[in-house]
């Protein structure tokens, strides 16, 4: 069955092309989009407005491509971490974060990651593969909270802009009327700043952008994030400024607080200088320690002072609540544990 290509993850144009290819009525593409993206059906048989013989034709050439998660961990605060299989011995995770009326799903875009950021658990897995649009969207489609989801953020495993085509396609399906119909203003793609792909995203998508900043100083950022040697932060910010930010979309900067590394008044001053002309906010994030990391989270009082100092300098700065700490909150922890377990079983 898996040899058949999946329908889930195809755009409406692609579904229309499937209908033509199989000699089905021209409106079958739209019917498929409805069943795939607006309902929870798990078989062609359940697509009741498609004729039986056409269901049969679809079944003979395609599979739905929707896979249930194989595990879920639930935190005392309501956060859930879903673990999915992404091929033999490969795992990805998605985090569901309820917060009052807001229900956010944090999705993965790759299995592992190539970017090697010093503070990231996913990077320790190395890179194992890209997810296609279907595998990205499946993280939303196949969980029970799907119907209540208000926001989707691409902040799980992987660097979204290292897998641009699949991410763009998944964003289209997420936001299209024929798809999940989530407002583009409720979808955020996070990047470490791969400039050519970021430019394409800003040109072609209306979704929000989040940039992992973590320090305003070049040399310091080079130590934390190897990408800085190729695409420096200043050029990332210059590129963002070329676009009409604020009117149609939100840009934010993610800033993980590392004790004694990036939490000084010097950093506040440089951030204020760097972001002076950018209509953007900063999200401060507490560092969730990962094994063997030389980094620690800043003290609470330091984080509070840092936030206040940035707000005083006119930069809207929020502190993201730490969620799911009792279920391996740091991105990549759950899948890494599963990966290690699976490798141990192999040997």
């Amino acid at each position, binding site marked *: 069955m898996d040899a058949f290509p999946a329908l889930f993850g195809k755009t409406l144009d692609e579904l229309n092309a499937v209908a033509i290819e199989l000699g089905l009525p021209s409106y079958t593409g739209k019917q498929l989009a409805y069943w795939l993206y607006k309902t929870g059906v798990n078989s062609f048989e359940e697509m009741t407005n498609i004729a039986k013989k056409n269901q049969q034709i679809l079944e003979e050439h395609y599979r739905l491509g929707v896979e249930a998660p194989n595990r879920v961990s639930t935190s005392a605060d309501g956060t859930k971490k879903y673990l999915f299989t992404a091929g033999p011995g490969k795992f990805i995770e998605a985090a569901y974060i309820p917060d009052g009326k807001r229900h956010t799903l944090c999705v993965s875009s790759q299995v592992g990651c190539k970017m090697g950021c010093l503070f990231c658990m996913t990077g320790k897995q190395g890179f194992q593969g890209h997810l296609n649009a279907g595998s990205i969207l499946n993280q939303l489609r196949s969980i029970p909270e799907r119907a209540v989801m208000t926001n989707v953020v691409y902040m799980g495993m992987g660097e979204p802009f290292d897998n641009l085509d699949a991410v763009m396609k998944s964003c289209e399906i997420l936001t299209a009327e024929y798809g999940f119909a989530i407002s583009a203003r409720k979808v955020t793609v996070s990047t470490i700043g791969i400039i*050519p792909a970021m430019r394409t995203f800003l040109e072609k998508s209306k979704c929000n952008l989040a940039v992992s900043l973590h320090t305003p100083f070049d040399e310091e950022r080079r130590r934390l994030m190897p990408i800085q040697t190729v695409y420096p932060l200043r050029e990332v910010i210059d590129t963002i400024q070329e676009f009409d930010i604020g009117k149609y979309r939100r840009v934010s900067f993610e800033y993980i607080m590392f004790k004694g590394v990036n939490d000084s008044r010097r950093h506040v001053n440089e951030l204020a200088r760097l972001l002076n002309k950018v209509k953007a906010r900063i999200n401060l994030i507490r560092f969730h320690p990962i094994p063997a990391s030389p980094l620690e989270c800043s003290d609470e009082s330091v984080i509070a002072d840092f936030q206040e100092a940035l707000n005083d300098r006119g930069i809207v700065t929020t502190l993201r609540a730490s969620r799911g700490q009792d279920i391996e909150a740091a991105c990549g922890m759950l899948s890494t544990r599963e990966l290690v377990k699976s490798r141990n079983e192999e040997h």
Partner: protein
Amino acid sequence: MKKKLNLTKVKVLRQREIAPGVFVLSFMRPWDFVAGQVVGLSGSETEEARLYSIASGELDEEVDILYNINPEGRLTPWMAQLNTADNLWVSEPFGSFTSNGEPGWWIASGTGIAPFRAMFRTGLTNGKKLLHGGRDSNSFYFSDSFEQELGENYVRCCSREVCPHAYHGRLTQYLTGIEHLPAGEKYYLCGSAEMVVDVRDVLINKGVPFDNIISEIYF
């Protein structure tokens, strides 16, 4: 600043297969660069460029690009077919993975050796130790020149077979076995994400401050 990767056409001077599936493509140098920088390469002016480290020295007349064929990729199988006088599109050089004349460690796996070859040919070898990890004896590109000039400061780590003149094992094993790693020196890492992350962990575990570890990752 580089707003976009503006690509210009160059002609291939030569192409050499230096190991099975591994090539050095050369073209006349159209610009100055700093050893360790990358360029974008593409098959046309409009296609998305992929980044490659320059593998030749700052004073060399030709630019060398070291690459291996990624069968799933579009660019490298095409590049491998190029002959002398064929066209290739290149960006200006950029990036800051650059070294200096101070003592330090260059640590690479596979084609991650490219920026260190550029630094080597630029003459930044004073006090440098070069560690190169590879699977088999064919993996140690440019080893003749490294061996000749760096002598004992050039270490090959061969993970899948016993090779003459090479340590048998991974880079991480070799580094773990070193009793004392100088904490004050700079460590330059280039290769796959997995190698960079693993080596960085070993260095940090052995007391090297992360401030002294500079990485470039192939993506």
